[in-house]
């Protein structure tokens, strides 16, 4: 091979690898990305059952049922809407009623219940997931104290 051909071979190989990677990234985005919703958004969103989403809001006070087996149920609310959530497993240390939460999972077909497989753990007692704080603020929900928003 001449110098030129060698260089072309290397550059051509590199470019085709990059193009393949770019397609892979776009494909992965279309398959794996989870959109964020608050309960009030869900009615207009009309999600297909099984679509993975992140559901954020406040844990409705008085709605948490635990101590009856491994599955816990609670309601996530943004005052405009309320969604019942079930989750099997151990809730994060800082999960509390009246506090912000993000649950990841999907709705089951023909059921209003959201089945979460991940409940976002929080790192700090004053931590409110930014997504939740923004949306709640936009909908005029009063947050208890400014330090709730990080």
């Amino acid at each position, binding site marked *: 091979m001449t110098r030129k051909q060698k260089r072309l071979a290397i550059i051509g190989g*590199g470019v085709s690898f990059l193009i393949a990677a770019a397609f892979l990234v776009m*494909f992965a985005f279309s398959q794996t990305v989870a959109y964020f919703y608050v309960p009030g958004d869900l009615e207009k969103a009309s999600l297909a059952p099984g679509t993975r989403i992140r559901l954020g809001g406040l844990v409705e006070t008085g709605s948490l049922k635990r101590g009856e087996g491994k599955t816990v149920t609670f309601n996530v609310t943004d005052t405009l809407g309320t969604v019942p959530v079930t989750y099997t497993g151990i809730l994060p240390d800082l999960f509390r009623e009246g506090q912000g939460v993000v649950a990841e999972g999907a709705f089951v077909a023909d059921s209003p219940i959201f089945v979460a497989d991940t409940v976002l753990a929080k790192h700090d007692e004053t931590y409110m997931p930014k997504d939740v704080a923004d949306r709640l603020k936009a909908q005029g929900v009063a947050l208890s104290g400014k330090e709730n928003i990080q």
Partner: protein
Amino acid sequence: MIIELGHYALVLALATALIQAMLPIVGARRGDRALMELASSAALVCALLVAFSFAVLTFAYVTSDFSVRNVWENSHSLKPLIYKISGVWGNHEGSMLLWLLILVFFSALVAVFGRNLPETLKATVLAVQAWIAAAFALFVLLTSNPFARLIPAPGEGKDLNPVLQDVGLAIHPPLLYLGYVGFSVCFSFAIAALIEGRIDAAWARWVRPWTLAAWTFLTAGIAMGSYWAYYELGWGGWWFWDPVENASFMPWLAGTALLHSALVMEKREALKIWTVLLAIMTFSLSLLGTFLVRSGVLTSVHAFATDPTRGIFILAILVLFIGGAFSLFAFRASRLKSGGLFAPISREGALVLNNLILTTATATVLTGTLYPLVLEALTGDKISVGAPFFNMTFGLLMLPLLFAVPFGPLLAWKRGDLTGVAQRLFVAAAVGILAGAAYYYAMNGGPVLALFGIALGAYLIVGALTDLILRSGIGKVAANVAWKRLSGLPRSAFGTALAHAGLGVTLIGIVAVTAFETETVVEMKPGMMVDAGGYALRFDGMRQGRGPNYTEETGHFTVSRGGVVVTEIWSSKRLYTARRMPTTEAGIRTFGLSQLYVSLGDPMTGGGIVVRIWWKPLILCIWGGALIMMAGGIVSLSDRRLRVGAPARARRAPRIALGAAE
């Protein structure tokens, strides 16, 4: 008073950095030796000043001086001493001061060990280091002053976030910063090369040890952070593809690429412009990481309470340095003469493949990390990009690289013999497949991909050793001759073999845990038994306890195998009193390379408690592999030819036949 001295020292450090940033570079242009030599003394003075300032802050923490706002916000008089010390960098202000300290520490190292650098290059490198130092000193002083007073002083502090009250905090951030910030030296060398318009193999020889050192620290820092998250958070996960983790992983990937491209440049004078670009990109990713973590655009345990001015300030630093560096590159890169050509099938070709794949993989991680931020800024849509995305893109892209890794060291420079190398790797491939099949059989089946993954890991390990075996002639010549040859190999050959084998070990750990871990969530009452990984766990009951600044409830478990009691596990939930914050202290027991991991959940009505039990097969391989990679870095660094600042001093006669093969 002492606090104000610490603050003042930081101001003086900024002034020194400004002098170091300007005069030496003028000296280098004019050939004024006095001005150039100023750089080294300024770098040392600056390092001492920042070190003093940092010591003052540490003193304030150790003596629980709550008249300092930062101490009040993040410390507590009852906290154990080690957490008082590590708490210095367990908050935004202190961690930025640590960042700065490590930066000026590296400048001082360049000043001390760079005696044989050409004097204009050294002066310019130190000046560029000082630009970064000045920017960050200004950032600390203007937006994140750790010495701000609080009058009147409160009687007690607010305590440190309990998650951070762990020995991990003492080790993880300093190691990570040594890595992150260590790449600033490579960046400064690259900028200096662009300013001087001259670059050669000697430049690569000076840059490589710095890259290697930074890379070794970063490897350790990331592995340590991963293990810390694993045992401290109680979720049993070791990597979450969290943006903050990605922020440290991207410089590591780019740094790994830089390590390999600098090799090509040193040996073959090729890939010059690319290496300079990669050096700039690596440190830019470090800066980007600092921005992501410290600006508050992300919420995580690393993003301490933030205010927007800080984010804007760091963004300005980011734009200035990255933008400036790339503009300089665009204007000056054409001046750097590009070097020799080589056949696609050669050692150089293999290293180019390494660079291509690593940088592409870095780009996908970067896309996945930034896309949600960009999308939200542009459309307001909030999305989460999580593990499935990264596994699909990053995982798939890295696969060909893992296959190719053992080929690299076996290929000759200039023109390699692919078939010959493939034949030599036949044994490694065979051992790999056997190991994969054996593990698969031992686990009683599972996903077929796991067999393949374990095989790939074993092939990497044996493939890495193949290079050493072939070069020493083990099995072909008498044992004492082989031993003599082996001990005569350059240290960097061992470093390469260790690092590549470590990669294989980590891969085996990842595959084994992903494919074969078991998770049981169960409600347990005292006396109940649960099986996990061939062990039986009996829950014996709960008991109360208290520590210096927390109360805890601990569950006791007896572990037995085949009816014989093997060990016990304690797992607890703590409540840190000052912040009223609960944490989970998982109970972990190691069996060989595997672990049992027990987390407590909520108490049940009727005396039971929810327990989450994981069996994590071969999980220690994940971090063990990282340790081996690190050892590879250290061994390579100790290579005589690479010793920082000592390439000229040859104490022994070169080992002819074997040394020349490298």
